[in-house]
């Protein structure tokens, strides 16, 4: 819709016609913020356009292709699906564009995937397999549902009822139990009682990310209702992808605002940072590491809270009522850094691309499932960047990032340790 009624509803691509038609090809979505430009190396932030090189893989190309799809000028093909899905939806393009302009790039990309699914062409076959597992077994690995709490060890105290509900997520529950255990033990150490969901299901991050809006919405409704029933005041996550799904995607799908969820969505790093600053948690044991911090996209530039909006677009493209654009400014950037700096012995060195300019690890939003080579390539780029600043270890706040980095480091023989931040926090508590 170029003028007239418009909303942020991603199920209708018409809503983003203006945004797609106003891309000026400045490639602010591709390059890191020029203020932070580090020279000829590490100068781009879009994994897709950096890897595949043709303009069609940058947001500037995708906006043009999306417009052609909307106008019925583009047939579905393998190349079109690759263009839509060989993309980490990491939000780098969105914050880059919104440094100067008011265009909704990330939402346009999400809407394009939703359209592809509605048209019966998307998602990719690999996504459909994972979706089946989520629907049948309530986790993305297809593991037995009854094993979901196997990560729990006897020394972890879980309350029957508490204000804090720890939503573990599929990754930490099934393949990264060290993250779930560390998170739980940190809470125990801080004296923060927490409970678990009586029957936790997958958050559906991947369903939404690949455009399966109906399935994702159904899961969102079910999960939201389940959390509300527990009476929790805070929903705690140790997974950045899950954090974004709960904080942003659920409200987006259900047409409510983040604050209308009925509870606060908090990532472990937010809670721990506060506990340290309140002196309720002391990090005393040294962790002698020179490490670098990787900003997981869904904790940083993708995590501005959601507020539904609908209105009219008029002259000069102005909208009414006022729309506060999500520019990635209120992401969780500083708290993880403050935590790491509070750990004795840690020497934190920044990578060239950091915060909103960070280069995605390549794992999320359906990329690893459908384009594993691309996901591995992105991780390799990031690990190389970490090594150039002399880091011994890379730390993330998301099991997706940790897994992808760890796998690639192992495959390539990269001599770099990979941690989730929860593990380092715990190490500094327990020694």
């Amino acid at each position, binding site marked *: 819709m170029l003028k007239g009624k418009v909303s942020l509803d991603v199920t209708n691509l018409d809503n983003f016609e203006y945004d797609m038609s106003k891309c*000026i090809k400045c490639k602010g979505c591709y390059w890191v913020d*020029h203020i932070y430009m580090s020279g000829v190396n590490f*100068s781009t932030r879009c994994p897709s356009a950096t890897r595949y090189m043709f303009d069609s893989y940058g947001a500037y190309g995708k906006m043009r292709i999306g417009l052609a799809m909307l106008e019925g000028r583009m047939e579905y093909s393998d190349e079109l699906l690759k263009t839509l899905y060989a993309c980490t939806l990491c939000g780098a393009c969105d914050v880059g564009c919104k440094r100067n302009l008011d265009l909704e790039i990330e939402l346009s990309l999400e809407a394009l995937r939703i359209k592809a699914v509605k048209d019966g062409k998307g998602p990719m076959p690999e996504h459909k397999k994972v979706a089946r597992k989520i629907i049948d077994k309530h986790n993305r690995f297809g593991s037995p549902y009854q094993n979901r709490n196997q990560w729990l060890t006897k020394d972890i105290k879980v309350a029957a009822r508490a204000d804090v509900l720890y939503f573990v997520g599929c990754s930490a529950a099934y393949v990264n139990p060290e993250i779930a255990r560390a998170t739980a033990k940190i809470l125990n150490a801080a004296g923060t009682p927490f409970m678990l969901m009586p029957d936790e299901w997958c958050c559906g991050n991947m369903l939404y990310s690949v455009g399966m809006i109906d399935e994702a919405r159904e899961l969102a409704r079910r999960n939201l209702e389940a959390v509300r029933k527990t009476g929790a005041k805070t929903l705690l996550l140790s997974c950045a992808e899950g954090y974004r799904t709960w904080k942003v995607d659920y409200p987006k799908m259900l047409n409510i605002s983040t604050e209308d969820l009925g509870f606060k969505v908090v990532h472990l790093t937010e809670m721990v940072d506060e506990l340290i600053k309140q002196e309720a948690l002391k990090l005393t044991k040294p962790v002698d590491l020179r490490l670098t911090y990787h900003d997981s996209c869904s904790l940083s530039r993708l995590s501005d809270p959601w507020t539904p909006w609908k209105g009219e677009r008029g002259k000069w493209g102005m909208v009414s009522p006022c729309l506060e654009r999500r520019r990635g400014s209120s992401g969780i950037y500083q708290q993880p850094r403050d935590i790491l700096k509070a750990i004795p012995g840690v020497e934190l060195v920044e990578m060239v691309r950091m915060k909103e300019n960070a280069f995605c690890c390549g794992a999320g939003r359906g990329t690893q499932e459908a384009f594993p080579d691309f996901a591995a390539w992105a991780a390799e780029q990031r690990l190389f960047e970490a090594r150039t600043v002399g880091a011994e270890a890379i730390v993330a706040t998301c099991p997706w990032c940790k897994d992808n980095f760890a796998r690639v480091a192992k495959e390539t023989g990269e001599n770099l340790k990979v941690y989730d931040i929860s593990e380092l926090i715990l190490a500094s508590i327990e020694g």
Partner: protein
Amino acid sequence: MAISKEVYKVLEAIVGEEYLSSDPVVCEGYRSGPSGYEAGLGYERVMTKIPGCVILPLTTEEVQKIVRVCNRYKVPYVPYSTGWYGPRSHCHVDDELLIDLKRMDDFEIDEKHLYAVVGSGVIYSQLQEEAMKRGMYIIVGGGGSQCSAIANMIGDGWSPLSYRIGLPHRRILGTELVLPDGELVEMGSLALQDDPFWGDGLGPDLRGLLRGFTGLRGCLGIVTKMAIKLMPFQPERLEPAGISPHTSLQLPVNRVKWINFTMPSKESMKTAMFEMARAEIGAGVTKVPIFWRAIAKASCKEEYWDIWSKESEETIRDFHLLRVLLVGFGSEEQMEYEERVLNDIITEIGGEARRTRPTDESWFKNADSAGMWLMCGGYVSVDYVIETLEHALPHGENYAELKKKFTPPLMPDYGDPGWFQSFELGHQGYSEFLVYWDPDENTDGVDQFYLETSKENIRKRFYTSLLGPHQPLYLTGPAYGPNYHKWMLAVKDEFDPNFLSHPPVPLAHDEFVEKAEWMRPMKDWEGPQITK
């Protein structure tokens, strides 16, 4: 497939299958519009096409081979570095090969002799950071940090910093040019030896051929490598800070400082520019157009219009803000000296210093050209002149008057007379006239205004930089030549006998006027016989 299988196979043999595509999805990604610089206007709608095929060479040798294949099989082609320069850098004819040069991002820097050698894919902010790491700097043209350094050097990009170190073409050193038939021309010292340290070489200086005045958009060949002169800077780091969208460079104010001055009149700004030059102080200077301030203040499009709608002809007429950059290139003492002299000059003229943030958002590394699209969604600079300051001021005022006839569709700007500044320590004056419009409304008037500015320049004897491929060649050529157009085409014929390098440039705007029915009535000059 838009080009024959045979040609495709030959091209594939040059670059490999990964770097060549004629897939409609890939080609659509290279569409010029509907938005961008000058996009959304008639020229873009009438004159541009999506490519029939896209190729990504890595080396000069590959470019040569590609161009030779194009000549052998009569395939039209256009070189493309970032695609930022709007429709004029995109395909204009069917089944055209777009040569995307982004993989050619080789970079070398010679700290001792103060120059960098860049490939076509290197952009300005990369070059600037590499230079600054080593105590040097270059001008990031107002076109933006995202410009290919080579393309912008050819197209003559400038900024307020051009006050001190001049126009870009003065910094073009040894250069590699692949001619439209595939022959390689090495310019400057490269013609003599494998060392691009110097711009002059054997015989006539061919650098003018690269650019005409403001770039020929590749119609006379493809520059694949260029050595660019860097200038010495001061030693302290300009530290990046902030989270997007509020990012800036923190300036070491003992060595680098912007100062804004409120001035009593436009004349007084001009006087200040001359006096600064006479005293040989300052690293940059510009008049600040009021709407730039509104863009900088606004957090979104709607807020911009809230701010802008409070302006009036009076506030615009009485707004005189001069922005001066001081750099202590040699020492802190130099900085202190220049600041004292500057304050004396401004005080004497009746100006007053305003509190100015110790940051740079827009000129050193980040040229915020993308912000020009915030308020309306459509933007182009209809004209820019590089002549004298005496010339620059009336040029802008004259355009402001002409613009009233075309508002709407142009954005109401209350008679703003454009942007002017001083180049090369007062020896040159610059005027640029930027216009904005709503691309979702009828834009015929914008096309007409663009052409009318050219006629106005001729009528009022204003010099213009927009010759060659930016206006009808047969309108501007006789007026500024008198044989500019004939020579241009003679050179084109000699270099590109098959007329394959970015056709129909340099006659593209002539063709546009012929093709667009809303433009045809404006044609009151003798047009070319377009045969190729």
